[in-house]
């Protein structure tokens, strides 16, 4: 329904606007409707301004900036309507050290109300885990669970 979409959009936008500067350590961002008069058909645009930079076409952002921006949106939707669990497969791959730290903070926060399952190669991300599973292929072609650590 129109009203439900409008309320959901407003709520997610509020979370997105709040989360962005936490992930980017500053800057501003917002979502806008391409056609506010057509709530049943309108698309959604993203306007993003990293700290100290100007608003530009979101396509000009760097690989790491795009990932952080996408995470801000995903987590914003998540805050509005948490699903009981969230699976993130190597979303931290393009991030530098500073961004990994901020990403991990927000993940820990989400984990207070949802279960978060992370796949990562990054040692700092592993440190925030409550439970750590290692997978190996000691025997070629055959996956083996090698250890559980309650950290």
């Amino acid at each position: 329904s129109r009203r439900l979409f409008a309320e959901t959009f407003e709520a997610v936008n509020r979370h997105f606007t709040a989360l962005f500067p936490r992930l980017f350590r500053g800057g501003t961002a917002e979502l806008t409707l391409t056609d506010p008069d057509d709530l049943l058909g309108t698309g959604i645009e993203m306007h993003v301004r990293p700290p100290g930079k100007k608003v530009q076409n979101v396509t000009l952002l760097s690989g790491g900036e795009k990932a952080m921006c996408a995470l801000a949106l995903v987590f914003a939707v998540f805050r509005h309507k948490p699903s009981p669990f969230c699976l993130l497969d190597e979303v931290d791959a393009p991030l530098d050290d500073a961004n990994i730290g901020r990403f991990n903070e927000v993940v820990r926060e989400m984990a207070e109300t949802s279960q978060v399952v992370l796949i990562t190669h990054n040692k700092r991300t592993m440190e925030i885990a409550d439970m750590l599973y290692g997978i190996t292929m000691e025997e070629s072609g055959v996956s083996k669970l090698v250890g559980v650590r309650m950290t």
Partner: protein
Amino acid sequence: MKLKRLDIHGFKSFYHRTTIAFDDGVTAIVGPNGCGKSNIVDSMKWVMGEQGAKALRGGAMEDVIFAGSEKRGPMGIAEVRLTFHNDGSAEVPTRFRELDEIAIERRIERDRGSDYIINKQRSRLADIQDLIAGTGVGSGPGGRRAYAIIEQGQIGRLVSAKADERRLLIEEAA
């Protein structure tokens, strides 16, 4: 509904029966390239009802059955079971409402389609999808919300997406 346990047997590279227990908070899965981490994500998408082989990186649904290795022959069956705590937080069909645990299971045999099982009873795909939709994980295409699972390499899509694709995210959260 909280995740409690995932049991995998014969699914992709998981020749051995493998059990992953979930608790509150953050669970991290680690290991070298190609060891099977993303296959675990595929197994969860699959047991929750994924119908597209491409969404699981395969060409046909049978590609999820252990195809063999240098030392071992292929298996004939793949099975995945995902067990939830029924903590009362979700809209669950009446017949499950009193249970502490709800386990959804899917098995596929070569040259035969998939079987769907809920708490040991043969069920239909639609039953699985209704249950998942009720948990708050499912409601989008593929039977689950686009923002609950972010596959490897897919995070950039939200930014490069067209305005009307991004709309779907809001619709699913509505």
